């Protein structure tokens, strides 16, 4: 079976890979590129564990055909932290104990990043709607919501930003 050659920008780097026509972006990331930070939960767009940002838009990578990302920008959990320090969302999740088993965490972090990119100071309600597409079976959500609010506060306060770096 002939495979499709796809070129895209992944976390800022131009990369290419080979995939099958009906392979999902999720499977291409994990199985072709070895980027296993993005998790598979349901595989049908219900749980949000595989969330990535595609051309600025939050999507479930299990609902994207890999050949569709030709020429497009993909951001995954592997691109969230800087070389020498974590993203404020990651700091807040760690400090706020916003995860237990961790399978949903990459998806929550990408959904939270997409939310804060378009709304830097969301209300609690906006946060809860912003991550409504992500399921967590461990935390009961409260610590996740608080950690996202904490990260938003951290990111809008220059003093706290300095402290983090």
């Amino acid at each position, binding site marked *: 079976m002939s495979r499709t050659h796809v070129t895209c920008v992944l976390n800022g780097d131009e990369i290419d890979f080979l995939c099958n*026509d*009906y392979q*999902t972006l999720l499977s291409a990331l994990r199985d072709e590129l070895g980027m296993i930070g993005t998790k598979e939960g349901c*595989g*049908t*767009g*219900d749980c*949000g564990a595989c*969330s990535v940002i*595609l051309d600025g*838009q*939050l*999507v*479930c990578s*299990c*609902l*994207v*055909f890999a050949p*569709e990302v030709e020429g497009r920008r993909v951001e995954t959990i592997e691109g969230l932290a800087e070389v020498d320090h974590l993203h404020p969302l990651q700091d807040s999740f760690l400090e706020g104990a916003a995860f237990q088993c961790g399978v949903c965490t990459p998806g929550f972090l990408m*959904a939270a990043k*997409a*939310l804060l990119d378009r709304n830097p100071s969301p209300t609690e309600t906006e946060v809860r*709607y*912003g991550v*409504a*597409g*992500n399921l967590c079976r461990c935390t009961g959500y409260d610590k996740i919501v608080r950690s996202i609010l904490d990260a938003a506060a951290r990111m809008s306060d220059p003093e706290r930003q300095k402290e983090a770096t």
Partner: protein
Amino acid sequence: MELLSANPGAAVFAGATDLIPQIQAGRPEPTLAVDLKRIPETGRIENSGGFWRVGAAIPAAVLTAHAGLSAAFPGLVEGAGLIGSDQIQGRATLGGNLCNASPAADSVPPLVALGAEAIIVGRGGERSAQVSEVVIGPSATSLDQSEFITEFRIPAPSRGSSDAYERFIPRTEMDIAVVGAAARIRVDGDGRCEEAAVVLAAVAPTVVEVSAASGILEGRVIPHYSGRDAFWDELGEAVVACCNPIDDKRGTAEYRRKVAQVLARRTVVTAARRARETL
């Protein structure tokens, strides 16, 4: 179109939020999958010559972020903004929501209430059809194998005209409508209703227009629902007469008939208030 005509097993897609789960659930892989997003007409939003043209493959997240569209058609944007999660809205489109042909599609009642036309291309060239004529039953459309929708043509709202959409779900987010209702209302300078359309979702095999609504509402100043005005009962009866619901896990037929009346009143009140605010 040639690709689609030559490949009887081909499928078109835009957001693929329905196609991929169907393949995961065992639907055979299409012999060819055509990505409509790469066709320029499917990605444009334009307002000219008395019509808005809205591309059929634009993700809901782009529609809800579009200030001009949100001002012109708040009800349509409400419907699009209720389709799944933020992740789903990054992909799901008006064309897909219509052609998936679910009776509970949230963006379809507003399109029908607005009198939108679907621009359809296929082997026979281009044609247009009222959105209400595209879906003929659950999972069935009137499009042939070579055809797909490129864009929707929606009459620009005149002064004094607006729309609204509401659905009922037992949760707060991420669910499929038990009942949905859209309304479009045009009022004159005194706030009196000149034109009305009410369209329901999830109460019949396709979305249904309450054709008697215009006769009941026209000529009235539409107040908040109080239960005292007899015309609300008339509207409720007209709504129930259009319902042909099923019993399923989301709700019983009787429950759907009741909720449809409530949502029809609410969207009529909201659309009328918005219409007055444009004066």
